């Protein structure tokens, strides 16, 4: 039996292309706002090359074939994302450093075959956390006005939204994971409108911001989201609520922790969503870990 002999037109290669295309509105917006095309393109190309070099190194150290690693679009996308938004304040060497940490942790998790799920997510999360702090300090160093990199992002909602919608329409990302958190935020905005004065859209606009939108795209492209429909639905709703809680605390730093740690919970949602329920064991450790983090953050 070797059927099928026909395949859906959507391939991972196409998804990768769509991701890069979805960044175009951001690029054009940036060129329009900053007006420094030459410098901008230079940084863009350098960033791309850096990512490729690190993906190659990753391949070399992990014995993964180049073919396997081509699928690891996330470092590439992340790098491009930061380059597009911060060509001046977030120079290439910082990204190289960040990629190095990312690679180191992933390498440890894969090479030594640590407990598959939790170790991979932990490694990933820790590397992102370090990346965040690194970015934060470098940002201070280079801009030296104390502005958080994340707060600057809120100016880019519209181009981010265009890229986001494009990815949903091309089915490159799971709409349940991407749209449901936004609807949850919208629902909360409406509820708040009834209890407090002010416009719904003003509140909603404050709640969704480009890091959230970009995170939702990026999260989908990661290998750590639930696979079942029900799992994605609940995952999206809980994510929306968490985003609200930490957004409402006006703490971009805490919000970033949610970005970093939420994917740890994936095994739980896989467990809830899968009709046959494969195993709860692998969900327990990451969930406990995540709960501790959330409690610590809220306190």
């Amino acid at each position, binding site marked *: 039996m070797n*059927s099928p002999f026909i395949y859906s037109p959507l*391939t991972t290669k196409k998804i990768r292309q769509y991701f890069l295309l979805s960044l175009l509105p951001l690029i054009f917006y940036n060129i329009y706002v900053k007006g420094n095309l030459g410098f901008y393109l230079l940084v863009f190309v350098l960033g791309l090359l850096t990512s490729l070099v690190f993906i190659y190194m990753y391949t070399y150290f992990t014995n993964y074939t180049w*073919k396997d690693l081509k699928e690891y679009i996330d470092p590439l996308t992340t790098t491009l994302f930061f380059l597009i938004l911060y060509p001046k304040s977030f120079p290439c060497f910082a990204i190289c450093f960040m990629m190095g940490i990312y690679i180191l942790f992933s390498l440890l998790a894969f090479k030594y075959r640590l407990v598959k799920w939790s170790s991979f997510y932990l490694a990933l999360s820790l590397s992102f956390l370090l990346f965040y702090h690194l970015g934060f300090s470098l940002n201070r160093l280079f801009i030296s006005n104390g502005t958080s990199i994340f707060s600057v992002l809120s100016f880019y909602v519209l181009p981010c939204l265009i890229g986001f919608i494009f990815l949903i329409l091309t089915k490159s990302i799971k709409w349940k994971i991407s749209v449901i958190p936004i609807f949850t935020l919208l629902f909360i905005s409406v509820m708040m409108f009834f209890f407090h004065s002010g416009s719904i859209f003003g509140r909603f606009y404050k709640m969704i911001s480009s890091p959230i939108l970009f995170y939702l795209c990026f999260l989908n492209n990661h290998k750590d989201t639930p696979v*079942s429909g029900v799992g994605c639905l609940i995952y999206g709703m809980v994510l929306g609520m968490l985003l609200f809680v930490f957004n409402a605390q006006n703490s971009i730093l805490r919000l970033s922790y949610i970005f970093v740690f939420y994917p740890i919970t994936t095994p739980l949602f896989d467990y809830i969503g899968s009709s046959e329920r494969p195993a709860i064991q692998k969900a327990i450790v990451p969930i406990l870990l995540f709960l501790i983090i959330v409690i610590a953050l809220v306190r």
Partner: protein
Amino acid sequence: MIGIKVEKKKQYQDTITTIPCPKKITIPYSKDSIIKVKVKDTVKTGTVLGICNELPIISSVSGVVTKIKPNIQIDVTIDKFEKIKHDSLIDALKKASIYGLSGSFKPTYLKYNQPAKTLIVNMMECEPYVMADYATTINYIKEIKEMLIYLLNNHPFEEVIIAYPNNQRNLRETLTTSFEDNENIRLVSLPTLYPLGWEKLLVRAIKHVDYQENPIEVGCIVSNVSTIYAMYKAYFLNIPLYERVITVVNEDDKYNVLIRNGMKVKDILSYLKISYNDKKIVLGGLMMGREVTPNTVVTLKENSIFCIDDVKQEESSCIRCGKCVNTCPVKLSPVLIKEQINSSRLTRLHPEKCIECSICSYICPSRIPLKQIVLTAKKKVNEHE
């Protein structure tokens, strides 16, 4: 989820070309068959060559038997026909060796032996590019109608439901004109989704009920429209089943052809002037079929032959997009089965429920051969049990 859209716009055509008999015909049979003819026997089209599972093996040509093992080979001469004699519908279905022509290929008399309230006529033909049932319906609508009216009047059926694809105006008009005067025959148009032609999904889509093993549990019999036409020929014309209409596709050329049981793939392709060198030949549909050689014998079980370019699919790692889980018609989780293939928890994911529809492999953007993986898991679980 009742299916996915595989073919963007199905282009139907209703002309049926008859493929002339080649010089030799090979009629395969299963090991447990009892063969009644000997080498050098002269047979007619319709002669009983042997018995398999209580049903006769019918000769599809007239000629001289030249070989018995491992298959019956007949040197073809001028057509002479042998008809069946019967005293009831069930008797006709048995003697004419009528099998379900939808792909299940189970003896049809077993279905009609049981009392059912609803007869569902399946015209869905969801395999992409296949239009043999469509051509059969358009060309033989009078005969199909006569058979359905006979079934309504002589069986305990309260109604007949004809399920047809909603993107075919021509078919809708033919059906509406033919059945407008009959209250008990209802037409239901359904979206052209794959695998909506599968009995279980069809019953779910029409009756909104699920059954375990057989549609009779919910009072339904599901018959393919080509089977209904074969039943008509058996009951009213006393002609056994030895030929059927299949679809042949080569790139943009599509044909509906009437073939006899036991023709070889190359006989059919050569007659249609299709060059098959350097091409992959697929028998039985692009979604559920298998790759064959030009010398493969085409039986009445098959509904199509495809000549396609040999394009290699590059496999990459899973991106956990969940498409395989969300589209599986039996609600399995192929990606989780893949992850748990060597684990003792595999049984909890029930790979044995897989109906081999290939949707998971079709939809996977990473081109992971999920169907094959699920089938391996199915084998493991069955062995374990």
